[in-house]
């Protein structure tokens, strides 16, 4: 049974202070670039910077799968020293991003092959979850069955009721950090959660599309051209996606040695599939958009116990330069599949 603690917001610093003795703290902070105000995950020293009021613009994916990563023996050795002797603590990760890491796990920690770089990071990182007391800009996690107010796998889960922060401390070993803070009333929290969930329900959209998407019918559907017509072909949706994990390699040549690097890649780039011969099996943008959606909602769930490779955080929608909406695509697919005979039953 979890310990429930309540902190006044101004007490947060005190908690983090003690945590930082043992952990490198990563948390959402506000950064202003020109006119743009963004909430991003950064390593924090000054805890007053921490901003928990809204979903960060970037997912915490980079702490498990950095955009650039040098591979090789000496590098994996370096890995631990990167954070010093401290483990990493990512503070205030919302359910969508927590689920996203869970989605990545079976990919990188396959029975046949374990990605040691990913594993290493995972083992040295723990996360404090954060519940959403209101719907974020374009998210719809509830439509995909993700609980916006809880997660099974994290040692600590928090709730922000506007004045105070509630901590559901599930891991015994972490209780020591909370001893000085008062206990919370589980009933009170339960009520709050219920009212928040009520609000969520009001704005919920139904994603009625079968998951996994039936492969052949969807693949050959004509609507891809339509939904991708205005797609520019940039990589924003994939780079901001907490679950997109495609990567490429490049080699950096130096005089005497060659370094192998792993770097994010995106199925939205034309070069992603271009062959050395010049042939490109995914020549047009609609084919690439189809790949992105099909991977998330058909191929991935088919391979991994029906779980889509999407945690419905909505970042691809918010960040898209031309405001392409994943929900619209799923709705379009739904409408199309509804009219295709036998699809629903065959699943």
């Amino acid at each position: 049974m979890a310990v429930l603690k309540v902190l006044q917001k101004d007490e947060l610093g005190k908690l983090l202070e003690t945590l930082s003795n043992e952990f490198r703290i990563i948390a959402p902070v506000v950064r202003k670039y020109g006119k743009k105000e963004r909430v991003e995950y950064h390593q924090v020293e000054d805890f007053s910077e921490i901003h928990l009021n809204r979903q960060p613009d970037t997912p915490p994916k980079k702490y498990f799968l950095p955009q650039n990563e040098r591979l090789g023996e000496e590098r994996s050795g370096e890995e631990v020293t990167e954070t010093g002797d401290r483990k990493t603590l990512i503070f205030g990760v919302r359910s969508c991003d927590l689920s996203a890491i869970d989605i990545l796990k079976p990919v990188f920690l396959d029975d046949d092959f374990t990605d040691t770089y990913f594993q290493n990071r995972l083992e040295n990182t723990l996360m404090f979850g954060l519940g959403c007391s209101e719907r974020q800009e374009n998210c719809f996690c509830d439509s995909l069955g993700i609980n916006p107010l809880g997660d099974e796998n994290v040692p600590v889960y928090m709730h922000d009721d506007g004045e105070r922060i509630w901590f559901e401390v599930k891991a015994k070993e972490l209780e020591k950090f909370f001893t000085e803070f008062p206990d919370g009333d589980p009933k009170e929290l339960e009520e709050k959660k219920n009212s928040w969930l009520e609000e969520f329900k009001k704005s919920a959209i139904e994603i009625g599309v079968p998951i996994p998407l039936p492969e052949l019918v969807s693949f050959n559907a004509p609507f891809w051209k339509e939904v991708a017509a205005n797609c520019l072909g940039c990589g924003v949706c994939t780079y901001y996606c907490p679950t997109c994990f495609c990567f490429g390699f490049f080699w950096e040549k130096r005089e005497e040695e060659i370094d192998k690097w792993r770097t994010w890649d995106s199925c939205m780039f034309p070069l992603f599939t271009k062959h050395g011969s010049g042939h490109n099996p995914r020549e047009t943008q609609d084919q690439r958009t189809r790949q992105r959606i099909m991977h998330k909602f058909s191929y991935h769930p088919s391979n991994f116990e029906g779980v889509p490779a999407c945690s419905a955080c909505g970042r691809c929608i918010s960040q898209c330069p031309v405001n392409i909406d994943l929900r619209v695509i799923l709705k379009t697919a739904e409408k199309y599949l509804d009219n295709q005979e036998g699809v629903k039953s065959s699943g």
Partner: protein
Amino acid sequence: MENKYLEISKKIQEESRKLLSEGKVERIIGFGRGEFTKEITPIFVSDPDRADELLFTPECDMMLAKYLLDYKGSKTGIVAKPCDTRAITVYLAEELIKREEVFIIGINDCEGLDDNDACEECGIRNPVVVDLEIGQPRKEEIDPEIKDELEEMTREERFEYFQKEFSRCIRCYACREACFVCTCDECFADSNQPQWVGASIGKRDNFTFHLMRAMHMAGRCINCGACEQACPEGINMRALTKHLYRVAKDVYQFEPGLDPEEKTLFATYKLNDSEQGFLD
């Protein structure tokens, strides 16, 4: 204010419906609104009954001209802000599209877009090329200053500033894809024979990428701000390209996208071109 845009939108809908039902164009590229987001998104209307989805507001900050390249070989109508018509002019100058294949529904007296700083520096408030004008053209000409926000900085400060800006770049290439100038099938940034710039997002390669990008824009960039609007990281995308725009204007009296007959900056020269800064 609101009324003005309602009127413009209505007129666009009316004319588009007519154009589509008379078969004068196969489709209209314009702006619409998302179902859930209520944000502006480019839409393609080929059914006259869907013409009502078209609208125009000061939120319409995407450059639509680039979509014309996807529809070569058929007649396409386009809802075009003055900057879009400049982009079209650049295409016409390089014969990337054919004039007779485009029907330009040009918006007169553009007052600039919300949230796009570039608009304040734009002197072109009526379409440069147009087939059908929406609204009354603006009479008085303006020539706003193309600002140099970094003017006060020393060279070292500028270097640091750009280092910082570009270090945030994640190379998602939204700037490239949103830019109407970027029409290469294979971007130099993706080339590996030769590799012009590393694929990593290290500061070194990022800076290099941005310099090369700016150099590629020179003489074509019209300072529309689409790159800056598209950048999810909020990088000051226009600083370098804008500077080159300013230099081309001052040194060569060259501004792209105003005359379809004009050769691009680097495809022409004058015998007495400036040699400012060359070693004598």
